[in-house]
């Protein structure tokens, strides 16, 4: 009764990510799929519109590599470190070419994904009052409640990525996907997208998923490919599997400050490697061992057997 959607990262990106697409690689600090970004760079995609609440180092790498012409976002920076230098060069100096920006607040981005996921033509939120943001983004539109209170809100339009790439701890081969720890917008981004690639630390038996159905965040019904790629989030993290590599985030600042250093990094860590497996090997076991957390088991609940 089930159908395997398991694919390699190379095949999934080749088949599902096309030049000119709107691509969302989501994950709020947690579960950011760097390996998918690297594969998109490696395959030389062009003219992408990249959507993400928090373009961080992954989008600095992708934009530095020239895959994108536009960014839809709500906060861009290297969290706790500073700026995204490749992005800033393009925005401040059109260097090497311009980058179009379309910006929201966090809640506005979340509501755009919600509208996309729920097939709503707009989504209302109480934000943007007396802010200059709507002045630089005409898609943020004021609206008034039709009820007696006449409360003013702003509405944002649905965001429907051509492809959403979502990392998770585990999924079955059909794409039923479970996440714990920070959820970000993984669910909303997946439901909103035309095509969905789920990347996981582990492909598990369907029975593992079915033992705890409330843990399922994304159902197979919206998933096109399932890629098993351990450590695919590095330097981001997968709760319970590995820690955030804060050292790399700090180091990225110096790498990205200079365009040549950035290109050299891309050559060494992306173009000269054939896959994320090579990347994992290149960092070496000691690196991964140091990022492994101690155990913190969830405990079990009982669903009861009703036969």
């Amino acid at each position, binding site marked *: *009764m089930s*159908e395997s959607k398991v694919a390699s990262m190379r095949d999934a990106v080749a088949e599902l990510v096309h030049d000119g697409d709107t691509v969302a690689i989501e994950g709020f600090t947690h579960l950011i799929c760097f390996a998918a970004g690297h594969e998109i760079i490696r395959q030389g995609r062009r003219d992408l519109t990249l959507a993400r609440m928090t373009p961080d180092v992954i989008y600095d790498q992708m934009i530095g590599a020239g895959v994108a012409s536009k960014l839809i976002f709500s906060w861009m920076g290297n969290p706790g470190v500073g700026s995204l230098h490749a992005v800033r060069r393009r925005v401040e100096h059109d260097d090497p070419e311009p980058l179009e920006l379309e910006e929201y607040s966090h809640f506005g981005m979340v509501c755009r994904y919600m509208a996309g*996921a*729920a*097939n*709503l033509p707009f989504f209302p939120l109480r934000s943007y009052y007396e802010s200059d943001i709507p002045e630089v983004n005409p898609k943020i539109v004021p609206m008034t409640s039709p009820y007696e209170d006449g409360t003013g809100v702003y509405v944002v339009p649905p965001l429907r990525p051509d492809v959403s790439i979502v990392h998770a701890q585990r999924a079955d081969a059909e794409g*039923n996907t479970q996440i714990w720890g920070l959820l970000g917008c993984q*669910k909303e981004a997946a*439901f909103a997208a035309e095509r969905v690639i789920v990347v996981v630390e582990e492909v598990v038996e*369907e029975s593992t*998923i*079915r*033992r705890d*159905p*409330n843990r*399922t965040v994304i*159902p*197979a*019904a*919206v998933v096109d490919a399932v890629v098993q790629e351990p450590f695919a989030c590095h330097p981001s993290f997968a709760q319970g599997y590995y820690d955030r590599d804060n050292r790399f985030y700090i180091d990225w600042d110096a790498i990205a400050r200079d365009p040549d250093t950035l290109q050299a990094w891309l050559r060494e860590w992306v173009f000269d490697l054939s896959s994320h497996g090579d990347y994992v090997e290149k960092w070496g076991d000691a690196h991964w061992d140091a990022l492994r957390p101690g155990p913190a088991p969830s405990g079990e609940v009982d*669903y*009861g*057997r*009703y*036969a």
Partner: protein
Amino acid sequence: MSDDAREVGFSASEIMIAASARQLVGAHNCFVGVGLPNIVCNLAQRIVAPKLQLVYESGVYGARPERLPLSIGDPTLATGSTAVTSMFELFAFYLQAGLIDVAFLGGAQIDRYGNLNTTVIGDYDAPKVRLPGSGGACEIAIHARRILVIMRQGRRSFVDRLDFRTSPGHSGDPAHDRARGWSGSGPTSVVTNLATYGFDETTGEMTLLTLHPGVPLEQVREQMGWEPKVADDLGETPPPTTEELRLIREELDPAGVYTK
């Protein structure tokens, strides 16, 4: 030996189940109601739609019930399912987003265009019989790509004019229907205790397609509130096969709760 069960006999419910299950060929995500639709879906999964995912408005996706659920919120639906979601998510991300291929509806009244009344018999403000109301039916009718109706037919249920339109069907104007922009295409089939119906592609009108074995056309016409359109090639509903009957009687409803 014939594969059909004519000689062993079958109930009206059983042919309704078998005829409906065959409509699910190739379906993926099916919104299941309790009672007959539940048995229909479980039968279809075994005979024509192995990939069928049972979705319940209670928030269950990919149910695999170990017993016949007695409500759409039966605990056997959650245990061992693929996903349990909030009802908001189920209605917004699954139904409204157009992920549901097919859903079952029924009602106290249906008209010739497949509009359904589950709200009230008589005047809304001074009801003769107060019915349950919409539940999810109104939005299911709008968003599920195909709607299959299962109900018993009679002059009080197949009516010329509904007392209340809870769930929209076809409008009678196919151009209007196409322009609606709904993900659903409205009712595509009605299965009753007497016959099966489709809907005319140009007029959207319910059309008698097959009579159940032994049911004369006259009986069908007597049990309807309007003069039905009849297909040029009016046929007979294929009776349940012996395998279908075996599945229904031995596996799906051994106590005969819904099929006696």
